[in-house]
């Protein structure tokens, strides 16, 4: 196949991909656009209900615990750690993809393993936070936290929190599973045989997307 990129090459004239990408990567991009609409709809719903409400709980008062620190008031420290872990796992994913370009099997395996570890760490943090909130009496349909103005809050604070962070956690979980499958293939040498590590790039796209979504979820639930 002619891959020499010249100024005169007619990208859209058929016979090859106009973006110089495989159909798999193209599908991943379109899937991510679609998934962005799923999360977008959920977050906009959250915004709508929140703006309809006269008052809303203060995240600094809700998310102030840290494992092993008892009742020390540490607002948003734990979620910052979670966010840091997830962002770091994106960094290791970038390194895995880069190693894939270099056709360095060992390095791909190493960085992919770190990414998986980061994903699992993030999910564990989320599990702890959920358990902690559940013990405090929060769940779908139950909200023990008062509004910032001291009035009793509707349950929609917790409803949206658990639904959207849960939906995101589900995405992280499937990302970890995908990464594990790809890691197994890397170790088996499947991609060495195939001559390229494009699958690593594709799960990489997904992983970065999930990370990006978290930035929005984090902003909407913890900062605003």
């Amino acid at each position, binding site marked *: 196949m002619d891959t020499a990129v010249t100024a005169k090459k007619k990208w859209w004239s058929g016979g090859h991909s106009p973006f110089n990408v495989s159909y798999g990567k193209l599908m991943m991009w379109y899937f991510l656009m679609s998934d962005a*609409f799923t999360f977008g709809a959920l977050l906009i719903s959250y915004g709508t209900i929140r703006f309809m409400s006269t008052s809303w709980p203060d995240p600094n008062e809700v998310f102030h615990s840290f494992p092993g620190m008892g009742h020390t008031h540490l607002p948003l420290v734990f979620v910052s750690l979670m966010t840091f872990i997830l962002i770091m796992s994106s960094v290791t994913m970038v390194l895995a993809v880069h190693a894939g370009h270099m056709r360095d099997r060992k390095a791909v395996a190493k960085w992919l393993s770190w990414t998986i570890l980061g994903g699992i760490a993030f999910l564990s943090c989320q599990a702890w936070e959920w358990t902690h909130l559940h013990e405090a009496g929060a769940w779908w*349909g139950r909200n023990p936290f008062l509004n910032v103005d001291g009035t009793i809050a509707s349950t929609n604070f917790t409803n949206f929190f658990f639904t959207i962070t849960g939906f995101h956690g589900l995405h992280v979980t499937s990302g970890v599973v995908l990464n594990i499958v790809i890691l197994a293939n890397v170790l088996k040498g499947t991609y060495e045989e195939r001559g390229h590590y494009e699958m690593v790039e594709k799960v990489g796209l997904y992983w970065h997307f999930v990370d990006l979504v978290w930035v929005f979820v984090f902003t909407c639930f913890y900062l605003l």
Partner: protein
Amino acid sequence: MSNEATLHSQEVIHGAHAHDHGHDDHEHHHEGGFISKYVFSLDHKTIAKQFLITGIIWAIIGAFFSVLFRLQLGFPDATFPWLESILGHWAKGGRITPEAYYALVTMHGTILVFFVLTAGLSGTFSNLLIPLQVGARDMASPLMNCMSYWAFFLASVVMMTSLFVQTGPASGGWTAYPPLSALGDASIGSKIGMDLWLISMALFVVSQLLGGLNYISTILNMRTKGMTMTKMPLTIWSFFFTAILGVLSFPVLLSGFILLLFDRHAGTSFYLSDLFVAGKALSNEGGSAILYQHLFWFLGHPEVYIIILPAMGMVSEILAVNSRKPIFGYLAMVGSMFAIVILAFLVWAHHMFVTGLNPFLGAFFVLLTLLIAVPSAIKVFNWITTIWKGNLRFTPGMLFAIGFVSTFISGGLTGIWLGNSSIDIHLHDTYFVIAHFHIVMGVSAFFGTFAGVYHWYPKLFGRYLNNTIAYIHFWITLIGAYLIFWPMHYEGMAGMPRRYYDYSSWESFKQFTDLNHFISVVVIVVFAAQLMFVFNFFYSIFKGRKVTSTNPWSATTLEWTTPINPGHGNWIGEIPEVYRWPYDYSKNGKDFIPQTVPLSPDEEKEGH
């Protein structure tokens, strides 16, 4: 480096694929067993047939439901003992119960909108025509394509199951508005039937996503050499836009359904606030039922274009072929479809003018809604100009294509009325709305589908449908559709509300007793005509007149360069190369010039 390697290996894979399957039809018959050839087939043509036949079965069920509830509307005082034999206690004494009536109406809408006119229409023809018309061996991912059908099949199984549960299927309307759909105690149709409905629809969204991603990447990535975007038939453009609409709007519906499921089972209040059920106050507080309507219609409106765009594309193609003239205004056609796609996302709130939507906001939605009349009118004028002074061949496909233009105009004009929020206040939820969307979206999309089936049947099965039955089918359907829906405009303008079980108890609607009676009789006749088509369809698969030439309609597009019964891989040997656009009809003294014919020196001088 890696990117080049990837693309290269993809090329190799497709090349090998061609070798495996491209040789000879006979060879193909020996490959694989019944299961891999007909059931879990990876061949886009077989998957197209699966979508089509499943769609036909659903269409019979959905249309039969409308016959049942039209019996109630047309003959409110009569009893039909046979109804009790098929519906049991849902039609005690031969009269449909109110609960059964609402269930039938709801399922009629759900089945026709999603299972027939979305999956059955775009599923069939996107699968059949995209690889054949862009010049590809198969879809980008045949496996995902197969999964798309089976996700649809699973959705069908779940929906079908919901018809047989004790409390009956969902019956809160095809839009499933909360709180009715969110509270199991609100009605008998809000119980397990509603859950099955939501699960089925979630599977349906998965099917749409898998299919849509495939359609998009096949069209972008796998066009044969020379097939620039502007050399693609309008069918392909329409499938492309349809897929983009589906991929971007169905996820929003899914989000809406996720929240609805939580409201139903997890005690949340996303859509619920300040409610009483059976005299008891509910604790739900802080939610908004209108939120669901926003999420629903953000899909719901693009959905009508998901239904009508493929029909538009096929009609454009069929009109040009059978007028022996180039399509008029090719780029205007593409541009207007693009405009429709953009506007489709910006008009959803015109379904919600009477929800208490801020009138100031409503004004923008009126403006954007009325703007859709511009691209729609461009398309209509282009269709008319295409057949103007053409050398028309009135094949059944052509008749249905012309019928499509007729119903699209008649139904589209009433859209201009309804798009005005002030008129909508009077007409909302009346039979006027029923008449509008059935003509512009239901009947038109069906005409597009029928046109497509009649036109591409030779490619699907290597045989023709029976022409005599086809002509009878066309005339009964066209006349019948107008007789059914035209009078409903008058009923609606007189204020007759939709979704009511029995109008005879209202003094103001008694004047319509005979009219309702008349409509119901026509419905039965038209339904019988559709059964005739179904008979024709299945009979002709085995006994139809055989196609003897590879290009029976003398068309220019690539699907007619394949063998009469193409095997998996479509072309024997190399995929043809494309040199010209698909609408070179009656040009330079030739009746038609296929896309595979290189430009003549004269043409090149003209600067093509």
